[in-house]
């Protein structure tokens, strides 16, 4: 039943958005005579629709570099990074939302290419350390992206409240962010990122600093939020269990040089969203088998087993 909702959300969208990384390389120069490091090597990756892409890999494999690259905090040494938006056929005029500054040419056959250059509000980021503004209340933090664009107060409030409700925080509008627990702070961060209405939501180990119980709880809130908004999500984690549970697509990366080595489709989140409890999903034999398989891959990368 809920699966239909996902499909409906897709059809209602005016455009089909793809985020494409083509042959991307990132090299960090060595400091003080050290050798330069190939942080990312030949990354080819396409994120599309409402993909919930989860990235796993041993430390130093370039997960965060990849996220910084998509966010626009760093730029590639070579390769291309762009959005490809296909306008719906019935849509003759460009929808208002898509009036974006495009890089170079244009709207060939209804397809818009927009190069990713620098950070922009079409790529929202949720950080491991919450990165909320401590001088603002919870509500003001979530309204902040709209305030930057001088959106009217009423509209700001409606949008922020909608996203805070989605994260289960409607009772904490006027709290100071430093009064909240770690899990709540991260949920405020997610609500804020959603309020900017980005094409893709980038999350850099958002639950890494949380305790195990809070973590499970926030995973479920994120999944429900994803279902409700149909956002494209790019999610980095260290936890294999979290990755399998939350994503629709798993990418495993390896270090030296940082590269994508494996890719798996995932459907465990579907089981959860269609009514099974998180514990039932996570303790099913299929889940455990998959978990051990991924752990084996990562341990081999780390050189812990041959």
């Amino acid at each position: 039943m809920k699966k239909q909702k996902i499909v409906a959300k897709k059809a209602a969208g005016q455009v089909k958005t793809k985020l494409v990384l083509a042959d991307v390389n990132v090299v960090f120069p060595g400091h003080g005579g050290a050798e330069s490091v190939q942080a990312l090597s030949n990354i080819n990756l396409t994120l599309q629709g409402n993909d919930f892409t989860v990235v796993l890999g041993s430390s130093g494999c370039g997960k965060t570099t990849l996220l910084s690259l998509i966010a626009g905090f760093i730029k590639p040494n070579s390769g291309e990074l762009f959005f490809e938006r296909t306008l719906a056929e019935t849509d003759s005029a460009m929808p208002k939302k898509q009036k974006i500054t495009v890089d170079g040419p244009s709207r060939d056959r209804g397809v818009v290419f927009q190069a990713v250059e620098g950070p922009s509000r079409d790529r929202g980021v949720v950080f491991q350390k919450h990165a909320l503004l401590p001088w603002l209340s919870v509500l003001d933090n979530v309204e902040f992206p709209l305030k930057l664009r001088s959106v009217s107060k009423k509209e700001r409030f409606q949008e922020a409240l909608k996203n805070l409700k989605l994260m289960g925080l409607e009772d904490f509008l006027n709290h100071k962010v430093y009064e909240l627990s770690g899990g709540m702070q991260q949920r405020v961060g997610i609500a804020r990122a959603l309020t900017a209405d980005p094409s893709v939501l980038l999350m850099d180990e958002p639950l890494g600093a949380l305790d195990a119980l809070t973590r499970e709880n926030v995973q479920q809130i994120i999944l429900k939020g994803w279902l409700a908004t149909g956002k494209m999500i790019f999610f980095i984690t260290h936890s294999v269990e979290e990755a399998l549970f939350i994503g629709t697509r798993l990418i495993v990366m390896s270090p030296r040089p940082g590269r994508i080595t494996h890719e798996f489709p995932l459907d465990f989140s579907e089981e959860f969203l269609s009514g099974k409890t998180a514990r039932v999903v996570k303790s099913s034999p299929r889940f455990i088998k998959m978990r051990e398989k991924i752990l084996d891959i990562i341990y081999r990368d780390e050189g812990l087993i041959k």
Partner: protein
Amino acid sequence: MYSLQRLKLNFAVEIMNFIRKIKYLFVKNPSDTEVYGVPGQGKALLVSIFSVIFFAAIWIVVTLPIFPSDVEGELIPYIKPLFLPSPQDVFAKFTFIWSEEFSGGTLPTHIGWSMYRVFGAFFLATATAVPLGILMGINKHVRGFLDPPIEFYRPIPPLAYLPLMVIWFGIGELSKILLIFLAIFAPLVLNTRAGVRSVGIELIHAAYSMGATRAQVTFQIILKGAMPEILTGMRIGIGFGWTTLVAAELVAAQAGLGAMIKSASDFLVTDVVVMGIVVIGLVAYSFDLLMRYFERVAVPWKGK
């Protein structure tokens, strides 16, 4: 016999409790469960009150006229009033000069002039050092250009360049305010710059990812994020301002607390010197308390 023993025991327990209470005044707040805490935790207010009383008592005792002098029947204190007048004498001088003129004005006039100079310089320093500190933080060219002159003059005592100020700007208000201004400017600009650096890169990245422009990041993220350090810089700066006050008023000041102290010292009127010192201390301390209160209200997130 038995009851006497019990009485002794009770008495011993009372003594022990008393000693423990006294000990807690110096060690930390009484807590029965916490054995090892953060070093120095707990409130020290009681100890501070004790400290004030302790030093005041020493002052009173060493200035009490209780020793016989060479003159028959006259008692003199341990320290002569020329070197240290008694607190009573200082207070008497305070009330006297409050209404009677001394060295060109009553006490309120002196305080008024000094506050005008210190706060005038403080205001000018805040208006210039904060924007420049922000610029130094966000622009490497500005930082590279301003760093050498500021770091060069910062450790030089204001008394050393006071003659230069007088030669350049005369003996009027300009050179006085400028001297105090320079003393406040350096710590304020450096604290502001440090404040800019203390703003986490995540906050800046987050703002850009929400569509903020460079100006929005500067004013809505960096300026606000640097606020705690700016306020600390203001507190340190105004402290330097008061430190420099007497030096600034050394040359041809008609009125002012520093001028009053200078002229009193020329005539060996020690009680006015001490009174001037105490007044400067109290005014500066009151303002610091005000700043601390303002800090709590303006940047309640500091350290959280």
